């Protein structure tokens, strides 16, 4: 076993705070969790890893009091607990921070932190001054600058999470669970969250961190527990593991490579974008993508990458500029015309843009191609199912039937359906926006292999991605956007975490943050 450079924690790991042993949970015939094991210690950040469906969320929900275990023991500070509601778990000192916090948008930041337990004055009046002062103290302890009087509406997801952390601190939570908190965060925000997490650890709290990203787990955590198919697999100090061994435990077999980049012959210019402008979102965007080429479009969240992708595909309008596909110009704001010219867009948010969650697999798969399946203008379920069957099979979608609602499948399978939906349209240019966000390692590698093969067959691919390892691993060329402009174009050979991050931010501090987060896996 290869030892990675040590990231030993400065604090000493303390007593066991929370312990789950032989915990199981079933939903009807489905056993979501069998003999779940987890031991959290004070002053430690514990990582929980596993593919989608491994049982991580079930464990989190049991800890949070949302689910009640069927069997097994759950102790907090050595005493057996039996939470019947989230309120009970909260009162016992457990705080859970979800990927997308749910704050009351119209209430102020302060009011959100103290919701339900506001400090009181006589006659049942809320002591606003005390509340506000307390909120400010929390923020200064966390070293963040959020105006406590502003409404929660419009706060970034990162800031919303910080407010959840502040809420946890005001409750003096002993255990802090963070369920994929970094999925929608930029690198700088991840760095800030990590600094806060380390501070909380040093105060002697126990943290549970759930993430799909190895670089983050290695940068932050000291212990890692792996789960697979609802079962506990192992718990190890992080220094005694490496990425390949963790992947093997998570997937249950060897994954050849996360980034199986094939050499492809680069052909003619497939997509040409010239001087594209949209006031307030992006400016003067010009680039080309050639057949067989994967072009990465990197940058921070909010740099305007998705907006460019949407404009090319015709979902959004733009003010001036020109888009052409193999020399034919693509009309503005006309998705159907773009599709006819062979452009396909796999959108960034599969639950809001890619899939109709309560439609079945087949209906989702054929939504983009049903015009082609119709005979004399009429559709038959048979034709739809046949086409859907072929594509679902090719992408190895796991589903009970073609009528199963897409929303009930795992994130990885949902993403496969979105990809299948667009591959079925037989595009010449495939734009993928965050193609592997929130999906498990095994599926991630499959998606990457597929993109690579498609490029090998002459497809031109534009890949928008916030995951640096993905951009560096897959792209033939990297375009970097910053504040609505393309700031640099980096060929594969010269693309590194530093060059891309510097182009994305023009900020040394950010580059440092990026290399901090990235380094352990390289």
């Amino acid at each position, binding site marked *: 076993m290869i030892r990675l450079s040590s990231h030993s924690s400065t604090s000493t790991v303390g007593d066991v705070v929370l312990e789950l042993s032989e915990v199981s949970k079933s939903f*009807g015939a489905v056993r979501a969790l069998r003999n779940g094991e987890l031991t959290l210690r004070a002053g430690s950040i514990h990582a929980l890893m596993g593919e989608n469906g491994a049982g991580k969320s079930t464990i989190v929900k049991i800890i949070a009091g949302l689910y009640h275990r069927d069997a097994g023991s759950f102790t907090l500070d050595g005493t057996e607990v039996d939470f019947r509601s989230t309120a009970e778990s909260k009162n016992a000192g457990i705080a859970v921070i979800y990927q997308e916090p749910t704050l009351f948008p119209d209430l102020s930041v302060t009011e959100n932190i103290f919701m339900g337990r506001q400090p009181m004055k006589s006659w049942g009046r809320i002591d606003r001054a005390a509340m506000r002062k307390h909120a400010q103290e929390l923020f200064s302890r966390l070293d963040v600058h959020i105006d406590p009087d502003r409404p929660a509406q419009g706060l970034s997801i990162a800031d919303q999470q910080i407010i959840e952390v502040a809420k946890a601190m005001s409750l003096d939570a002993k255990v802090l669970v963070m369920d994929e908190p970094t999925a929608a965060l930029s690198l700088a925000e991840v760095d800030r969250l990590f600094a806060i997490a380390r501070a909380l650890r040093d105060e002697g709290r126990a943290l549970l961190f759930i993430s799909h990203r190895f670089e983050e787990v290695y940068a932050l955590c000291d212990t890692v527990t792996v789960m697979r198919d609802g079962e506990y697999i192992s718990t190890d100090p992080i220094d005694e593991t490496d990425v390949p061994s963790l992947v093997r435990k998570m997937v249950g077999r060897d994954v050849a490579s996360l980034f199986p980049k094939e050499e492809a012959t680069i052909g003619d210019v497939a997509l040409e974008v010239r001087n594209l402008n949209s006031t307030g979102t992006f400016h003067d965007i010009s680039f080309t993508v050639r057949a067989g080429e994967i072009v990465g479009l990197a940058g921070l969240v909010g740099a305007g990458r998705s907006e460019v992708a949407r404009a090319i595909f015709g979902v959004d309008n733009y003010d001036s500029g020109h888009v052409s596909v193999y020399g034919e110009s693509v009309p503005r704001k006309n998705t159907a015309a773009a599709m006819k010219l062979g452009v396909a867009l796999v959108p960034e948010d599969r639950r809001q843009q890619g899939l109709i969650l309560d439609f079945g697999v087949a209906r989702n798969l054929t939504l*983009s191609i049903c015009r082609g399946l119709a005979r004399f*203008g009429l559709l038959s379920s048979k034709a739809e199912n046949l086409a859907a069957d072929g*594509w*679902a099979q*090719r992408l190895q979608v796991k589903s009970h039937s*073609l009528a199963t609602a897409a929303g009930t499948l795992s994130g990885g399978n949902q993403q496969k359906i979105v990809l299948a*939906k667009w591959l079925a349209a037989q595009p010449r240019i495939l734009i993928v926006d965050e193609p592997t966000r929130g999906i498990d390692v095994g599926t991630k590698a499959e998606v990457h292999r597929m993109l690579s*093969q498609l490029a090998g067959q002459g497809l031109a691919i534009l890949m928008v991605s916030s995951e640096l390892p993905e951009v560096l691993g897959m792209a033939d060329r990297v375009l970097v956007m910053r504040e609505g402009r393309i700031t640099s174009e980096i060929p594969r050979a010269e693309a590194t975490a530093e060059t891309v991050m510097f182009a994305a931010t023009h900020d040394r501090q950010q580059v440092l943050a990026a290399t901090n987060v990235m380094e352990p896996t390289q």
Partner: protein
Amino acid sequence: MTDSSTSLQAAPYRSQSYPYYSSPAWKRFFLTREFAVVIALIIVAAVASMSIRKFSSPLTLGYLLLDVTPILLIALPMALILISAEIDLSVASIVGLSNVTLGALFDAGWPIELAALAALVLGIVCGAINGFLVTVVGLPSLAVTIGTLALFRGIAVGILGTRSVVNFPEYWTTLTTSVFGKSGIPYVMVLVVVLALAFVLLLHFTPFGRGIFAIGRNREVAAFSGVKVQRTKFILFVLSGLVAALAGIYFTFRYGSARGDNAQGLELTVIAAVLLGGVSIFGGKGALHGVLAGVLLIGTLQSALRFVNVTSDVINIIVGALLVASIVSPSLLTWLKGKITRAAKEGTSKTPARHA
């Protein structure tokens, strides 16, 4: 994953690797909200014809069908609009406007056929105004059609004032109310059946119809999948205007009169029937056989109650209660189901706990 698995060529697979449906065909057809409405219709019709003397006569059937025809017609496009998560409250006003236009033009000496054509064109224009305000200007259809409900009605009343036009050509009025032999089924049902078939095909068997469902479920996904969201909605409002105008012409010949306040309040009956038929007020859900059954259920119930001299106030109360019950029942059923499974689980989970 094999190399061929991601080929961009057309599907070479002809073998089936997934079950197409998660439940057998009879379950998918019979255990649905729509079929429950059909059953309710059959029960109401059976009980009424057994317990009320002369209810099952061809004469009653004929009148019943003549009465529900405008609702049946307008319910077809209304169902599509509701499934696309919009609403059209102006339909009754378009019926009135079409009725008045036909009357006024006929009164002014136009040939009746030409006047009817003008009424249809006016219906299309009304629908296009709604569609324009909803899709191009981007206003919510609820607000737009509340506005045009008043606007179109106002114009209709303005055209004829307190006058009413009668004396329409007997050929047309007789034709409209004539029935096939002794069956009691009016000629106009041919028109209803043809339109219903056309709408069934449009909604359930065309890419356009798939688009309507997709828009109703998630407008953004629809837009990202190449569905022309605004154009689809515009077409639906125009169709609604056209069919409402057609219903207005029917109304004119059926009752032989044109008045500014004809068909007032009809939109609520139509929407109630469509919702009763299983179309979701939130969009994305529904089927036309349920809608047709819903309209006939309300029609039969009203007719039967009138037969036994129940006053119209009481009929309204009963129909309203039925509608509320039909909307509440799905959530009530889910709640009950959850209760039962939870109770069952508590029962089973206690057993292993004792062993532990």
